[in-house]
């Protein structure tokens, strides 16, 4: 399995500002968007877009760099959502603290899943992660309580919108949610960037591509995959809390379903796994399809978006097996070179 495709030149004295200018512009655009988009519906769609970009970026740390295909990341979304919600409903704990606690639980669970499964190859690993996530969902659906904690089985948990404010991670407007998930996304992308330029990133990619060669070069491949899994499940879990606070209602189907895991994988594969831009690009292209199909065909053809994704995935795998980020990155680099004549490119 191939991991990333970023061919990088060694650090050299290229004009720094020029390199970063397009990124800064993009960031400024993203932060300014709610000033223009006033419609709550569109803002909602944008928030979900950012949420999926965040989820896929988190997934990419293990699914992209480590060269495995986890298909059960919904489990971590669910753990995050349920942990913060239960703790805030029953004990009045701030969802922010619940978010971190949920992340820690997800980390432990992620490592426990990884321990036996990272030795499996390809499809077996993917199947094992599906089985685990589905098992967890069915369990929660059938549990009214877990020890002292009320889960409410399939009925789920409603979060009454009593105290609004940053400390409670609850707002009457959509804008604050937009800025929070955007900030989370920027941080996740930053982490990915740092990892991709670190020993961890190099060794993960090496282990994902040629495990035997990587091991001979001093890399304990299985251990690094566990580290990647730990970071990935922690970050994924945070999105669960965000989601719960955004929708104020969670149930096993909404935060733990296989659909979520699959959509993340589709976005990553179509956008380009193992690259930094892939998940962002994938979310940008696929989320609107999801929303459109749910709005117009939600009753008549539920799941239509997954069918469309499947077809797109086949086409992309046939013609651009590294995902759509590759031709677009190439175009972008060529454009930059034309415009500024910098030595950008690889």
């Amino acid at each position: 399995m191939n991991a990333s495709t970023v061919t990088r030149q060694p650090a050299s004295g290229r004009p720094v500002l020029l390199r970063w200018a397009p990124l800064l512009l993009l960031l400024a655009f993203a932060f300014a968007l709610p000033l223009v988009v006033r419609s709550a519906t569109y803002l909602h769609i944008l928030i979900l877009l950012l949420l999926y970009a965040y989820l896929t970026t988190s997934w990419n740390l293990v699914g992209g760099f480590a060269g495995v295909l986890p298909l059960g990341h919904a489990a971590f979304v669910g753990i995050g959502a349920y942990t913060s919600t239960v703790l805030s409903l029953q004990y009045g704990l701030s969802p922010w603290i619940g978010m971190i606690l949920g992340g820690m639980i997800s980390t432990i669970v992620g490592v426990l899943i990884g321990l036996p499964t990272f030795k499996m190859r390809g499809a077996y690993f993917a199947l094992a992660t599906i089985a685990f996530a589905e098992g967890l969902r069915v369990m929660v659906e059938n549990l009214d309580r877990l020890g002292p904690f009320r889960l409410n089985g399939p009925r789920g948990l409603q979060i009454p919108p009593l105290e609004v404010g940053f400390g409670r991670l609850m707002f009457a407007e959509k804008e604050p949610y937009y800025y929070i998930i955007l900030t989370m996304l920027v941080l996740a992308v930053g982490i990915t960037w740092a990892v991709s330029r670190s020993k961890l990133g190099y060794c993960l990619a090496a282990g994902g591509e040629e495990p035997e060669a990587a091991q001979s070069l001093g890399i304990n491949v299985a251990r690094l995959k566990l580290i990647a899994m730990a970071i990935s499940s922690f970050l994924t879990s945070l999105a669960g809390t965000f989601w719960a606070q955004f929708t104020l209602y969670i149930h096993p189907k909404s935060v733990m379903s296989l659909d979520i895991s699959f959509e993340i994988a589709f976005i990553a594969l179509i956008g380009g796994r193992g690259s930094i831009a892939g998940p962002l690009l994938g979310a940008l292209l696929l989320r609107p399809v999801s929303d459109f199909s749910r709005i117009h065909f939600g009753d008549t053809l539920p799941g239509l978006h997954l069918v469309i994704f499947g077809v797109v995935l086949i086409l992309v795998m046939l013609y651009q097996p590294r995902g759509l980020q590759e031709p677009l990155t190439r175009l972008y680099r060529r454009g930059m070179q034309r415009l500024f004549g910098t030595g950008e490119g690889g």
Partner: protein
Amino acid sequence: MRLLELHRVSKHFGGIRAVEDFSLEVQAGEIVGLIGPNGAGKSTLFNCVAGVFPPTSGEIVFQGKRIEGRKPWELCRLGIARTFQIVKPFASRTVLYNVTVGAFATTSRLAEAERRALAVLRTLHMEEKAHVRAANLTIADRKRLEIARALATRPRLLLLDEVMAGLRPTEVDEMVEVIRRLRDSGITFFVIEHIMRAVMALSDRIAVLHFGHKIAEGLPAEVARDDRVIKAYLGEDYGAA
């Protein structure tokens, strides 16, 4: 000083006795050649030393420590590096990326790892290929990349498995020269090689494997004169190489 000692090492795969009762000592600073016909068990022996699998029986000692059964990455950290007969580049990555991964075995900083990687590439006359994707290399360059990556880990002992196969005669001479220079810089070599001219020129000592058994060991000239060796192996191949 003895760097590597093999004591009666055997490796069986089910009924196949790939290596049987093999003993050898490699002194620090030596270049030891390992030759033998196809399927003699040479790569299997390397795999035992490099930790791909443990020997079925016998002892492997590196720098005075028993190492049989240790994992490849632990052995790399102890100072044993190896190349693969069937090359295994990180094909989607550049040459520099490949070698940098190796350099990360002994540093954690990217800038330092890249600096060391470039230095290694220069030693192997590959620096102008630094930004070429490994998938696009010729077979000769892939072999060189194997060595570069292994060298970047800063090994004490380097196991080379047929790195000259596919090289042109001038390239073979160049490689012999490079290996000699690396030895002079303090690296010990254990070398599997089919190209007789190269292995004869390079090795201080040569061991000969035949059907898993060591049938001869000695100076290149001695081995070349050995009757059993000629019968088993050189008789068919020496002239051709």
